[in-house]
């Protein structure tokens, strides 16, 4: 996309000269660097509950965030009004962080290199509502048809189209058009008047609506949600204590997100408050483990052509054959740590200061057949689906909660068990990985990551892996 074709130029009459003037205003009190992040976001969502389409909503939000960096200090202000006087005012407020003579600089803004990871012709947000409402109706019907024990179904389809413009005092001018869509389904099952059980499924990405019609249909996600609910009807109490845990492929990659991903974000390491601080070059996992964070996979939920500081995203190796290779950097941390940005500067919206974040985090495939991994476990837990996770960066302790798991007895998967939280310590947990499967899978596209109050979309992935020792928080 060219600047002149962007919504900011076309609808709000913003010119390159305006951008340069705002940056000059932002640096009028000194400061090392300034940037502008313009955002124009269209959102829509449709939900069905009890087979009734109860809600349909759409909205527009827009604004600009102005950031000034002076040494380790950041000044930030934003405005949801894009008129020149309001943007100037925000620039003046952000400028207050610096105390020194203003810099008279000439900013020569040039559109930088970027990927083309989601060459979407028509974003789902731009299609007729009638087509999208059909997705939740189909999901509702399919989940109910899956099994007579399904008695409640909720489905939410949500999409958005984010148009962004980043202009920096380094001369970078970056534009992107970021579509995103997700279908989520929750089903409740009950048998013989007993207590209900719930199943969840969902997915999507930076895709056209066709994705839900041809590749991952509402019926696919609905069957998955219904299946999980029905399976859980026969669940027994989860075991408690240390044991061998086998993680299935795909979404269980949330282990990596919590155990190592957050701890490798550069802001925590620059400040020396992460359990991984100062450990680049050290062994933090078994040699079977290579973990990457890759923002450049086409169409993925966690992918971006450019990060929210205008830098192209990259494939970053975090752990290679068990050895810690590097951190996820944004502009501020990379400048202070004298390293390159890894294209990991992200923010929730124009109202938020960017920080280092993950994109799609996964472990590379190994050589074991998944069946052999299960067969090698005399007694343990096999986890195939999870809810959320959390990590304490400083101690390194992390949790993630299994929503579908099974006992492994004598090398065979036997009974489903009730929800249980798994807990481990980041720099230690992956040292116990003793087998890595050849079946790497990325998740279906539902992840949301929260950090310091900011939510961004992420992906995870993992092959089947065996962890010899992990604490399982059941009751049995």
């Amino acid at each position: 996309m060219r600047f002149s074709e962007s919504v900011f130029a076309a609808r709000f009459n913003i010119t390159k000269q305006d951008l340069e003037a705002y940056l000059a205003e932002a640096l009028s009190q000194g400061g090392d660097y300034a940037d502008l992040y313009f955002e124009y976001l269209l959102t829509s969502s449709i939900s069905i509950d009890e087979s009734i389409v109860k809600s349909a909503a759409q909205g527009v939000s827009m604004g600009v965030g102005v950031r000034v960096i002076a040494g380790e200090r950041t000044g930030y202000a934003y405005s949801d009004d894009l008129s020149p006087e309001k943007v100037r005012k925000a620039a003046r407020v952000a400028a207050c962080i610096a105390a020194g003579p203003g810099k008279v600089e000439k900013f020569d803004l040039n559109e930088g290199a970027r990927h083309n990871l989601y060459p979407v012709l028509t974003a789902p947000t731009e299609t007729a509502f009638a087509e999208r409402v059909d997705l939740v109706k189909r999901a509702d019907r399919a989940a109910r048809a899956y099994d007579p024990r399904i008695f409640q179904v909720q489905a939410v389809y949500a999409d958005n189209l984010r148009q962004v413009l980043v202009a920096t005092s380094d001369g970078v001018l970056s534009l992107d058009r970021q579509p995103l869509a997700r279908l989520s389904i929750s089903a409740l099952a009950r048998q013989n008047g007993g207590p209900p059980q719930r199943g969840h499924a969902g997915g999507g990405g930076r895709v056209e609506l066709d994705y839900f019609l041809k590749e991952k249909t509402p019926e696919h996600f609905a069957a998955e949600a219904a299946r999980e609910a029905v399976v859980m009807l026969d669940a027994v109490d989860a075991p408690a204590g240390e044991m061998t845990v086998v993680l299935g492929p795909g979404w269980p990659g949330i282990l990596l997100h919590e155990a190592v991903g957050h701890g490798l974000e550069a802001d925590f390491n620059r400040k020396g408050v992460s359990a991984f601080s100062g450990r680049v070059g050290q062994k933090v996992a078994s040699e079977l483990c290579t973990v990457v964070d890759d923002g450049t996979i086409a169409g993925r939920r966690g992918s971006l052509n450019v990060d929210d500081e205008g830098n192209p995203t990259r494939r970053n190796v975090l752990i290679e054959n068990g050895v810690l290779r590097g951190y996820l950097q944004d502009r501020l941390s990379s400048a202070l740590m004298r390293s390159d940005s890894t294209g990991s500067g992200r923010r929730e919206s124009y109202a938020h200061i960017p920080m280092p974040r993950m994109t799609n985090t996964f472990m590379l495939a190994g050589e074991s057949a998944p069946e052999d991994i299960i067969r090698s476990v005399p007694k343990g837990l096999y986890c195939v689906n999870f809810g959320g996770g959390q990590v304490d960066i400083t101690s390194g302790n992390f949790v993630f909660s299994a929503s579908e798991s099974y006992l492994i007895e004598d090398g065979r998967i036997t009974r489903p068990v009730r929800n249980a939280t798994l807990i481990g310590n980041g720099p230690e947990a992956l040292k116990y990985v003793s087998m890595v499967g050849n079946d790497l899978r990325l998740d279906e596209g539902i992840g949301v990551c929260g950090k310091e109050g900011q939510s961004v979309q992420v992906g995870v992935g993992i092959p089947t892996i065996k962890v010899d020792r992990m604490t399982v928080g059941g009751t049995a």
Partner: protein
Amino acid sequence: MNSDCLVELAQDIIKRACAAGATDAECTIAEGDEFSANVRMRELENLKEAGSRGAGLRILIGSKTGASYTSDLSPEGIGLLLKSAIELADITTDDPHAGLPDRDESGSIPGDLRLHSPDVETLETGFKIDCAKRAEAAALAADPRIFNSEGASFDSHVGRRIFANSRGFTGEYRTSYCSLSAAPVARDGDSMERDYWYTMARGFAGLEPPEQVGRIAAGRALRRLNAVKVETQRVPVVFEPRTARTLLDNLYEAVHGMSVYRHESFLAGRLGEKVASERITLIDDGTLPGLFGTSPFDDEGVPSRRTVVIERGVLKNYLLNTYAARKLGMKTTGNASRGLTGNAGIGHGNFFVEKGDRTPEEIIAGVPNGFYVTELMGFGVNIVTGDYSRGAAGLWIRNGELAFAVSEVTIAGNLKDMLLGLEAVGSDLEFRGSVAAPTLKIGEMTVGGK
């Protein structure tokens, strides 16, 4: 657009929606100014200041609904807001329970609820930064083992909310809050731990002194050092107020009207039954002046009120908005809550357990071998079944005393059993947010460790 015109804008949007074919309409307008200063290692790190506003519209055409929102309050933006909502009503399904509250249910609590304190707006930036610096400095000075810090923050917010509907309700109120927090990092050998403490109030006068915030935060980080993982075992578990409060977050979800009518809660269909120890009385009260869960009316224009949820162990009421109430054949409890868009959801007012008569020290003294939980992690609570399994850290209780730090363990049970097995309620109830609990002791849970 002038700020004072926002009430008129809301009413105008309602009128125009009805003129365009809506049979009912409701409009929310919110505006706010935020300030945040973060210091780290005695230096200013981040300074953020900005204001924003937005409008949301929900309309009904018969029993079909459509909703829209915008942060663009220009005539063009409002035009699009109206057009979107009307169009969307066309794709939803007739829902006989959808609709606005009945006229006789609308209204607002009279009088000053002390939700807005003018001092928040007059504080100098330098003074706010200095408060954060003092809090962090006190933490860093507390002990040589406090060697680092994730910083200290002073945050403040002032806001205004306007709500109008086509049944003649118009209301507005202003809110403010400020908060001060510190997050020091302690180290001893290979052990590194972080913790935090904070104070929050409607006005600056209600905040605890910065030095106290820093000292408490430091003490919390220090007592976590050199934590060990204990053996897997079943023991009594004592939740300090900060973690006890999270149990109320779980209970709130279980009495949430939407979860109840969908049978998504282990407390669905159990009104009038004994669901908890008789030591527990659980209240939702949106009328307490100056507190964080207080408002004159809910997000559908129904007056806030006091609702007894559990009375001495017996489940008395769910928390309802108009929709959930109609689904369940009940009356709204004035708990409607929403952002700017969509149908009203459900929220709580000040949601708390009435305090008991035992001090936390007395409760701990009564435990020969047990776990005092100061930190909980993760999302391992299933409201449908009540299954509870979370990561935990804290202190081990041996012979009635806090003996050593514990981490990397889980605690697990089922909320049904945990409620019935509640053996002690502390006298230390205080509000640091809209959900508050005193120290709570549960007779037995599984601690998962080695």
